[in-house]
Structure formats: structure tokens, C-alpha cells
């Protein structure tokens, strides 16, 4: 029966071929994104300039603050520069893989394109989350890496071998947390349709990710952004790892919160899908 799609053949649905199939799809999506970016080269370069300007701005803010103080909490100037670098690194990688897709979700619901995506024989969340790749994000992550290295030299940090994979794993967890939070917020667009206010709001959350954690007193603010929307952990924990001031507690907390966010976002996504009524058709 050659008419049947391959995926429905029970012999073919074992894990390895499933992974291979999804990898194949993802490669195709990448190719599409590269083609799209090469169509608007000037715009692509200008966006990199915009992101660089924002990054320089954050660093400028830090240097101005440290004209007037020696410490913020226990953090010295170059430690905070390192923190801003780590935060930018994670944010830009998140942006490269997920941000446009999360932001476009409400648009897909509004104009009814969601119908089409749900009909495809691929996991809908996979497709919705990874449809486009923002290549500029990788370039900007490079600039963040350069700043981190510079700050590291100013601090005379010595990297030990287990630090590098540990740091990269933490960055991955951080990207995962950002993605799950953003995706949950974007899923709300199934109810309100116009969720731009919420997407805009997420940018405000990024602002907190690059602030040194112990600048904040114990209280509602710190509790909320550690245990409810754990953005304060995302870059602080890896930055603490690099500056050798990490406690194992916060490490486990980061992992625990990542799992919690992942479960929550899947639950919200499924609830939203149940609620979906097609628009425009």
C-alpha cells in the first residue's frame, strides 16, 4: 500500500526513525530560513546593529552605575558585566530558535493558518515552535561571548575542564526556561487573540534576567521571579558557576524549575488546543 504515509506504518514508528524524520524536517526549515534571510540582506545586517546597540546600552548602564558604587550586593563591576554577557548569550540563542515563532503564534490563530499546521502529520508544537530560525541571533550570541571572555580576563578567571560543559548545559536549561515561559504566554493568545501586550511583557522579564540576584532583598519580588517565573535564575546561576560562587542548591533549583516550566507549558498548550476554534474558515 504505497499510498499510506510512512509515519502511519507501525513498523516505521520506532524512535530512531522518528528522530531522523524530525531532524529531516528541521533541516528543511533551516534551509527555508536561510533563503528568507538572504532575500533581505540589508535588513538582516541592520537588525544585528540594533541588537548590538541594545547590548552596548546595557553595558553602558552598568559602567555608569559603577561610577557611583563599588558593589551591588556581592557583585563587583566585572562580575556584573559577565552576568550581562551570559544573559545576552542565552537571550540571543533563545531568540535565534524560538522568539519569532512564539511571537507569531497569535497571528497563526488569528488568520486561521493554525488549521493547516494542525493537519500536517507532524507534532504541532514542534512545528509551531521551530518554524523559523533567526540567524542574526547566532551572530549576536557571538558578541555576547566576546564580552564574556573579556570580562573573564578582567576577573582573572581560570576555567576548569568540567566548567565548560556545565556552563553550556546551564545555558541550555536557561534557553528551555525562557522558551517554556514565552510559549505559555503565547498560548494564551488562543483565548485573547491579541496577545501582543503579553509578548511585549516578556521583554520586561528579560530585563530582570540580567540583574544580579542578591541586589534584591528577600520578599515578594524575589520570590516571584525565582519560584513562579524563574527568570532571575536563568543567567545568575551560570554566571555564578563561572565566577566560582555557585551553591549546589541553586543548581538543583534551576533544574527543578526548568522541569516545572516544561510541564506547565505542555499543560497550557494542550488546554489551549482544546479551546481552539478555527478562525476565518
Amino acid at each position: 500500500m504505497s499510498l499510506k504515509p510512512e509515519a502511519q506504518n507501525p513498523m516505521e514508528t520506532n524512535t530512531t526513525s522518528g528522530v531522523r524524520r524530525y531532524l529531516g524536517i528541521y533541516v528543511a526549515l533551516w534551509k527555508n530560513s536561510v533563503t528568507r534571510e538572504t532575500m533581505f540582506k540589508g535588513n538582516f545586517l541592520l537588525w544585528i546593529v540594533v541588537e548590538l546597540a541594545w547590548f552596548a546600552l546595557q553595558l553602558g548602564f552598568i559602567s555608569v552605575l559603577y561610577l557611583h558604587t563599588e558593589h551591588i550586593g556581592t557583585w563587583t563591576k566585572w562580575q556584573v558585566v559577565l552576568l550581562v554577557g551570559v544573559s545576552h548569550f542565552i537571550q540571543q540563542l533563545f531568540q535565534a530558535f524560538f522568539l519569532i515563532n512564539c511571537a507569531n503564534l497569535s497571528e497563526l490563530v488569528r488568520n486561521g493558518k493554525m488549521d493547516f499546521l494542525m493537519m500536517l502529520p507532524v507534532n504541532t508544537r514542534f512545528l509551531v515552535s521551530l518554524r523559523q530560525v533567526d540567524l542574526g541571533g547566532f551572530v549576536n550570541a557571538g558578541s555576547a561571548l566576546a564580552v564574556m571572555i573579556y570580562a573573564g580576563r578582567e576577573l582573572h578567571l581560570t576555567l576548569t575542564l568540567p566548567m565548560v560543559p556545565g556552563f553550556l548545559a546551564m545555558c541550555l536549561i536557561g534557553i528551555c526556561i525562557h522558551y517554556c515561559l514565552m510559549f505559555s504566554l503565547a498560548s494564551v493568545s488562543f483565548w485573547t487573540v491579541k496577545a501582543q501586550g503579553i509578548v511585549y511583557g516578556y521583554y520586561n522579564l528579560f530585563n530582570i534576567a540580567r540583574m544580579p540576584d542578591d541586589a534584591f532583598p528577600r520578599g515578594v519580588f524575589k520570590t516571584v521571579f525565582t519560584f513562579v517565573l524563574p527568570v532571575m535564575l536563568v543567567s545568575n546561576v551560570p554566571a555564578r558557576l563561572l565566577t566560582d560562587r555557585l551553591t549546589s542548591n541553586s543548581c538543583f533549583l534551576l533544574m527543578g524549575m526548568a522541569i516545572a516550566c516544561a510541564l506547565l507549558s505542555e499543560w497550557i498548550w494542550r488546554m489551549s488546543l482544546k479551546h481552539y476554534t478555527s478562525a476565518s474558515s
Partner: protein
Amino acid sequence: MRKYWQVIGIGVQNNLTYRFNFLARTLFGFIPLTAIVLLWRNIYAGKGSDASVATFTLAQMTSYYLLVTIVDALTAVNEDDWQIAADIKDGNISQFLLKPVDYLWFRFCLYLAGRGTYLTVASIPLVLVTIYLRDYFVLPADSTTFGLFAISVLLTAMLQFFVSYTMAMLAFWVMEVSTFIFILYAFEYIASGHMFPLAILPPVVQDVLSYTPFPYQLYLPVGIYLGKITGVALIKGLLAQAGWVVAAFLMARLAWFRGIKKYAAAGG
């Protein structure tokens, strides 16, 4: 004149549709505000009692960020620049070339309507937060100061609008104006005093900035309110601000007339 009142009426109705969006925006806006106020408290705490940073006491610093939020709610362009650029790209401005309505004033009315609606919605959380922080909220020295503050806010609003309008005019020449708008916004964010009072910058930088329009887009009214800009500096500041308003207005007009010559009425 009556037709423009009609435009304002329509603008208010349109904007009311997005009242929950506005509320969400203000509420989310309080997150970085709270963070930065807490950050400053931490810095002041390390300096001992009655410490000051560039003549700002902790109460003044806290008030500074609250006032920035208030002036921003009063004057920031919301989506006006995107809409103007879209109108040009989609050919919607063709009708204004025929109607006895000036597009610039038409947009200005919509901007005022947008600000009015936004402020009405945003005032609820703003008042609550101000009451919560009342111990740290300083009042202006006297009624003259408040009057000058109000005048400066008005000029800020006009400057914000004319600058955004001019930027949107770029849509006559380039496909995608958003990148240019974002680059300008990035500079404005730091150079207009959004992130911190400009007084904490090194004097040289402050001098350079005073020759750009940025400090007049936000810092001047807040500085006047807090009594940081007084006497000759105040008069000079207001004059410079008025000068920038006129310059931005002329730029907006010029860009429009040059743009119209190139306009191809796509889709319209």
C-alpha cells in the same frame, strides 16, 4: 477645527478596544521599574544614611523613576509610527491627498486620543503604586515648578510625536522602517534618561547630550519637577526644547512633501 475633534473621538473609541492591552502593558512595565528601584536601594544602603548619588537622594531617585513612568505614559508614541509607515506602504494616504484633512494633524489627533485613553487606563495602577511608595514620592517645590513641568511635558509630547512622524516618513524611501525606528529608540532609551537620571553621567557626556534632542524627550520635564534644573539652565532648557519641537515639525513637513513627490500610491 470640528473635523479634528471628530478624529479625536474616533481615536478614543478605537483605542478603547485595546484597554486590556494597555492595562497589561502598564502592569508589565512595573516589573523593570520595581527591579531598578530595588537595585538603587541596594546601592544607597551600601553608602550609609542620607547618602546621595549626583545630588539625588534615595527618595528623589525613586520619584525619578515614577515620574519617568508617568511622563512616558503621557507622551510616548504607542503604535503611531508603525501605523503611519503602514499607511504609506499600503497606499492609504492617497485619500488624504484628496480630502481637506491634513495628514499630519490627523495623526496628531489620533496620537492625542491614544495618549488620553492610555493614561485613563494606566492611571489606576499608577496612582496605586504612587500611594504605595508615598514615603519616597517627593512633591514639586512650588506651583511655578509644577507649571513649568507641565509646559515641558507638553513640549515633550509634541517633540515625541514629530520625531516619530518624521521617522515614519522613511517608509516613502525604504521597505522596512522598523529597524531605523528601533535604532533611534535604543539611543533615546539611554540618552533621554529612561534608564537613569542623566545627572549621574560624567559632565562631558552631559554636555554633548545637551546638543542632541534626546534629553528634551524625557529628562528635562522630570529634572524640572525634581528641582534639578533651575534658573538659567531651566530657561535655556525650555528654549532648546521649543527649538527642537520647531525643528522636528519642519523636518516632518519637509519629509512629507519630498515623500509625496516620490509616492507611487501602491495598492491604493
